[in-house]
């Protein structure tokens, strides 16, 4: 009898759970599932974005074309360079900043806010600010010349391939460093003080404390930040779009998302663009799956 009652309570709770979850499921289906499914469907057709003619079915042709396309592989290469160049400094420096922030008691909140503030800016605004900074007469050249004791050297932030890639990495790093620092801060904050105190009593110095206590216990946060950074980097678009619109050469920073945009909006080839977006989705989905899998197996218990 008691068992039945419990079972009924569980069902009742589950029903309410469904009530609360349903609106988000509906919205998510409408604005995420449907576009994904539709994009997958569209990727099998040749459709000109401007044409009213019905699209023609081409099977896997859009995909096979992409695997043969020099431009597609160039954009894959650019995306990988950007991801590698952004991912490592973001994870490392956000962890260092978080540790530094946790080690100070005064002005901690202020620094947290200061670091986090670029994250709330729209990517377009951030890119516009940096376009002014990277202007040949802008702060970047002035700063570098002052730093290196040179006069009038143009570092070509928006011109040469290497510097242009670096510029996009700098913008992204500036924009997201605070966001991931805050994630690490909350991760470090969740580690019970008793563990640190016990290690200190056992004679561990600050270095040992970090490597043998803090860092291992931060593993789930580090993995989460790594995966999120990687996904963010793969999705990068606004900075590259704004820079190329402002006259920077396209080829060195033609990342996959920019290629998708140009293929669809400038070239009108929506089928090919959706095929590219599906491939990008598969890569991102794989990383998300990894994140879920790793976060499940790498759960840390403080008990």
């Amino acid at each position, binding site marked *: 009898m008691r068992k039945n009652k419990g079972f009924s309570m569980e069902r009742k709770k589950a029903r309410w759970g469904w009530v609360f979850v349903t609106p988000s499921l509906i919205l998510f289906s409408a604005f995420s599932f449907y576009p994904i499914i539709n994009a997958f469907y569209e990727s099998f057709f*040749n459709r*000109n*974005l*401007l*044409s*009213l*003619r019905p699209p023609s079915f081409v099977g896997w042709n859009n995909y096979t074309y992409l695997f043969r396309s*020099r*431009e597609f592989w160039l954009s894959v290469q650019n995306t990988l360079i950007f991801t590698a160049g952004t991912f490592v400094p973001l994870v490392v420096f956000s962890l260092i900043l978080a540790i530094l922030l946790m080690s100070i008691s005064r002005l901690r909140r202020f620094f947290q806010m200061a670091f986090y503030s670029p994250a709330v800016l729209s990517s377009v605004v951030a890119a516009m600010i940096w376009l002014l900074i990277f*202007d*040949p*007469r802008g702060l970047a*050249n002035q700063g570098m010349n002052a730093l290196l004791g*040179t*006069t*009038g*050297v*143009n570092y*070509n932030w*928006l*011109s*040469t*391939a290497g510097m242009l890639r670096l510029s996009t990495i700098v913008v992204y790093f500036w924009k997201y460093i605070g966001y991931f620092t805050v994630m690490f801060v909350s991760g470090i904050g969740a580690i019970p003080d008793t563990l640190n105190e016990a290690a200190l009593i056992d004679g561990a110095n600050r270095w040992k404390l970090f490597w043998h206590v803090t860092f291992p216990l931060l593993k789930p946060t580090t993995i989460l930040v790594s995966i999120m950074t990687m996904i963010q980097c793969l999705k990068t678009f606004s900075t590259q779009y704004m820079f190329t*619109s*402002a*006259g*920077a*050469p*396209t*080829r*060195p920073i033609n990342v996959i998302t920019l290629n998708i945009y*140009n293929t669809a*909006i*400038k*070239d*009108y*080839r*929506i089928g090919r663009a959706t095929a590219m977006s599906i491939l990008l989705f598969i890569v991102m989905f794989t990383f998300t799956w990894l994140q879920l899998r790793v976060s499940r197996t790498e759960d840390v218990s403080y008990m």
Partner: protein
Amino acid sequence: MQNNEVNRSRIVCTFCLGYHLDVAKIEGGWYWRVVPGCDLLNMERRIILKKTSMLLFIVLSLIIATNVVGAQNIELTYWTHTDDNRTIIENRYIEEFQALYPNVTIKRVVNEASKMGDLMLTAFSANNAPDLFNLPIEQEYGYMMHHRVAPVNYEAIGYANAEELVSQYMAGTFDTVMMDGQIYGLPLELTNWSLYINKNVFRDAGLDPEKDYPKTWEEMIEVADKLTLRNGEIITRRGFDFRYPYYLVAMLPMVEQLGGQLLSDDGKTAIVNDEAWIQVFEWFRTFGPHGRNLGSPTYTSARKIFNMDNNDIGMCLTGFYQQGRIRIDNPEFYDSGEWMVVPYPVFENAVKDVRCSYYGHFMMVNAQASAEKQYWAWKFIAYMLDHGWEYLETVNIIQPRQDLLDDPRYMELPYMVVFMTDMAKSHMVFLHENGFQFERFIKEAIESVMLSNMPSEEALDILRERIQEVLDDSY
């Protein structure tokens, strides 16, 4: 009579409101009549049917009434690009037109010129485009080819037919917007670019602007170098710079001067005359940061800063309309006479005297707008364009109307002779269904050479491959 009736039957319509069809076979012939009363339906059903029918009647009446009201009130959306001078006069035209036709409301939406192409494409692909709009013809061409714009309604614009309309404009005006005998746009402006010069900058560099202005592209490098000021490698004053996104308008003619073409005459092969292309690519390398460091697309647009007379640009390429913008941005500079316009340069070894291509902004009407909206959109366009002289004087844009061109005051406008002489040696901008895409490919090729120092031959090979792929594509 009754005895003769055989096989009498009743057919009851379910929507009959109690009437029935009485069908009878009388003396071998079939007869029918509608008779009030229906004994097959009970009273309750009849009441429900009556109520339903009444409701249907009300709904239908409302729909018809709404359509009638809708037909009376027309709301048109007009998308155009930024131009402060034009905004002032067109807002006035809208007010006047709305006063003349109170049933018409026009919403004018202004977009940044560089973003208009993307915005328009997105709107059209979502079937949510404005009723009327203007874009550069090289972008509009695709809309016409894909039947996204409506042909001109001659009745609405007050002409009997296409011939009568064509006769009112400069010869060739409609060549680019004519398809299958139909005209798809009315010209808001026809523009070519010549070289604007800031005389102060020339004098500051010890040059005589009247004599020393560049006549050839080779001279352009030398003169620009003399005018350019630098702090180390950083340019603080450019002698000259291009309008970089517009490669088909201003840079393709440089290739054509040397005998090159983007496509072969049959339109099937990309890139004609590699030497011509490579010479132009090398010219840009010399001009850019890896050469004499005279300018680059990453600096602020030369045309935009020219008006300010801030000693930061000596020369720029732009159209007659720039004069209106100088007047509004910097009236003192406009009145000072410290600026002048000279012809578009030509290469020393040019085989063809081709000047900067001219392009048009045509007013077009969305083919998906209702017939009524299309009619009023064309009527409004005709009303606006009837003010050709005001557009010329206030906005400095040239509508190629014959009456305007025949007006003796026309050639007396400042530097109009330069523009007209250049235009006589030029042709309409390269038009192709994928022209917009080709322009992007040219942009990437020139930037690769100019900014990333890619070998010209490699950049040309990539350009050729990309354009050829589009040409060969089965779209």
